[in-house]
């Protein structure tokens, strides 16, 4: 997913950023289905939407749901205008899958907060304006889910250091962020102190269920189909294309079913986990199969763009089942939903 502040700005001018947010804050007051239709179009053509993506998908709705009116009036218009980009501050070097063990600490000081700690794997942190940080506002890491709170952190504040991390594909799309005695205003807190865990889970339901959890490899797949059309290999791979169509169609229907629950105001954690786990399996299966297919006959020339794209997607595909909760975490959540834990 490419990053282009200019592209996000153009979308915002059309009113296509933050469409689910209330119109008095610059949104369009549309339901989750409208957003589904919009983001599906954007993902299907591989539009460079990552600048506003997190704010549009989860930070904006989070602030709208749990924030104060002052926070809504300050942040939401900026989000809808693509002037404020957000990143996620959940993972830490020692709190990955075990998110409840976060050690970043926000201490009260004279009506404000002092933030210390660090976050990692924050997508686009080095290009974003704000991070919503999950931090411990009371108690000890052994208190687990208790005592966590969420804070909106302006990444330009003194004491914030952002260090991009280079990945295996030659990109630097995520970063490590350090907080050294960062002084936050009292209204940096979103929602209630101590409700961070519940809020993060509501946020993750948005993150896990959307169409982007089934379309990560779609541009590659569409391009392979384009290359196959009219070629002698079309007949050989038709059944594989059919299987992808069958799975995509079913996953899309499942994703719509979860969207329907979100639209009704529910927080379908288990359903979202289920769709994400099986969705990423589909997304990862695409580069895996195409690699094998285009190297099936070494004497048949391979389209240069296809070769490059499949290599890139294969390299980055492991992240699909890491971000937003690993496969093991999601299966554990499903098991809990089944009453096994």
């Amino acid at each position, binding site marked *: 997913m490419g990053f282009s502040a200019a592209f996000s700005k153009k979308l915002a001018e059309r009113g296509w950023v933050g469409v689910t947010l209330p119109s008095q804050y610059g949104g369009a007051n549309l339901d989750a289905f409208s957003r589904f239709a919009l983001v599906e179009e954007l993902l299907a053509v591989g539009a460079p939407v990552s600048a506003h993506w997190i704010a549009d998908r989860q930070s904006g709705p989070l602030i709208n749901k749990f924030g104060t009116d002052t926070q809504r009036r300050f942040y939401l218009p900026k989000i809808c205008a693509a002037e404020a980009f957000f990143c996620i501050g959940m993972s830490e070097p020692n709190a990955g899958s075990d998110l409840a063990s976060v050690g970043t600490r926000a201490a009260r000081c004279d009506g404000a907060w002092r933030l210390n700690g660090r976050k990692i794997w924050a997508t686009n942190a080095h290009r974003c304006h704000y991070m919503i940080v999950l931090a411990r506002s009371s108690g000890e890491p052994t208190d687990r889910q208790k005592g966590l709170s969420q804070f909106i952190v302006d990444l330009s504040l003194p004491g914030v250091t952002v260090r991009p991390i280079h990945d295996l594909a030659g990109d630097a799309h995520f970063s490590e962020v350090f907080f050294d005695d960062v002084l936050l205003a009292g209204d940096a807190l979103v929602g209630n102190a101590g409700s961070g865990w519940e809020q993060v889970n509501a946020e993750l339901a948005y993150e896990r269920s959307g169409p982007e959890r089934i379309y990560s490899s779609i541009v590659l797949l569409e391009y392979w189909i384009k290359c196959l059309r009219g070629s002698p290999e079309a007949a050989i791979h038709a059944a*594989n294309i059919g299987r*992808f169509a069958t799975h995509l169609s079913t996953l899309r*229907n499942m994703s719509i*079913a979860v969207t329907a629950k979100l639209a009704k105001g529910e927080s379908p954690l288990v359903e979202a986990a289920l769709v994400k786990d099986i969705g990423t399996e589909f997304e990862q299966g695409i580069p895996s199969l195409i690699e094998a297919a285009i190297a099936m006959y070494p004497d048949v020339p391979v389209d240069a763009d296809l070769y490059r794209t499949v290599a890139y997607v294969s390299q980055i595909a492991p992240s699909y089942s890491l971000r937003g909760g690993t496969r093991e975490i999601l299966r554990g959540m499903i098991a809990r939903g089944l009453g*096994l834990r």
Partner: protein
Amino acid sequence: MFAEAIEDILENQCTPAEVRAIEAGGSPAALWQTLADTGFLELLASEADGGAALSLPELFPILSSFGRYAVPVPLAQTIVARALLGSKQAIPAAMITFAATLHREADGAIACPLTPFGKVADFVLARDADDALLLPAVSAQRQSTGVSRSLTATLTWPNERGATRVPSGGTALTAFAAALHAALLSGAMTRVFEMTLQHCNNRHQFGKSLGKFQAVQHQLSVMAEHTASASIAAEAAFRTVDTVPALRSAAIAKSRTSEAAQLVASIAHALHGAIGITEEYDLQLLTRRLHEWRMAHGSEAHWNLRIGQDVLFGDMSLVEFVRSVSPYER
């Protein structure tokens, strides 16, 4: 509400003992009579014809429950066949099944290989190019498959005499046969999943229930994912205001449920252990059907090929294609 009332009847009438008896060669006449007397056969018929005039979305959970109870008679097929044949064809309350294919020999003989319920059905409705052909099984030679307890058989007729031609009934038959098997598969898979979950809660090893082991939990989660996918795919084929499922939706439904069937059956047996492959335990009534229904009227390999050809020889992008078959777009 309809579906719940029907489940109650199946619970009482279509017991595992009854299924076993019919599979062992017992007469299905009494069970069939009960189901016919209850009005099952007219679920799709118009109210003017004394039917329930159900829509396809209303029919789906009912067909699915036939899979759940491993109904050992061609009830789903007969309900659909009677709707396809219409009130013009005055047919008695006979058992009608669908043939997956129809072959014509050089001497005019007709063969319907591996026909589901071929051993017990009174009539076979087979696709013959654009038409459908209603063939009386009484004049056919029935050849068993040799598969233990299977009701599938190959039927052959010396000629077409005695058959009734249903003009332009061919496409509807193909789409309905695929869609109804998808519904049966999804119902059976849901039951298999429930049985496996229950077994993992009840059975203790190493001092705790199987469901407490993380490796087992993850297998159950995968099973839940595929069972849910199968149900969504099957239901989508019936989510239409038309009287016949769209062929592409039926194709996707049959492919997705068939692919899941193998996996769900395999995890169910792995988690049940040896008890699962015994005759006396009910799991086998369902998992044998999962495999049989996966192959009936085209496996996932068949339908994937057809769908893939539609995509590759068409001019839509894959996303456009998927949207064009989505029941949520209309």
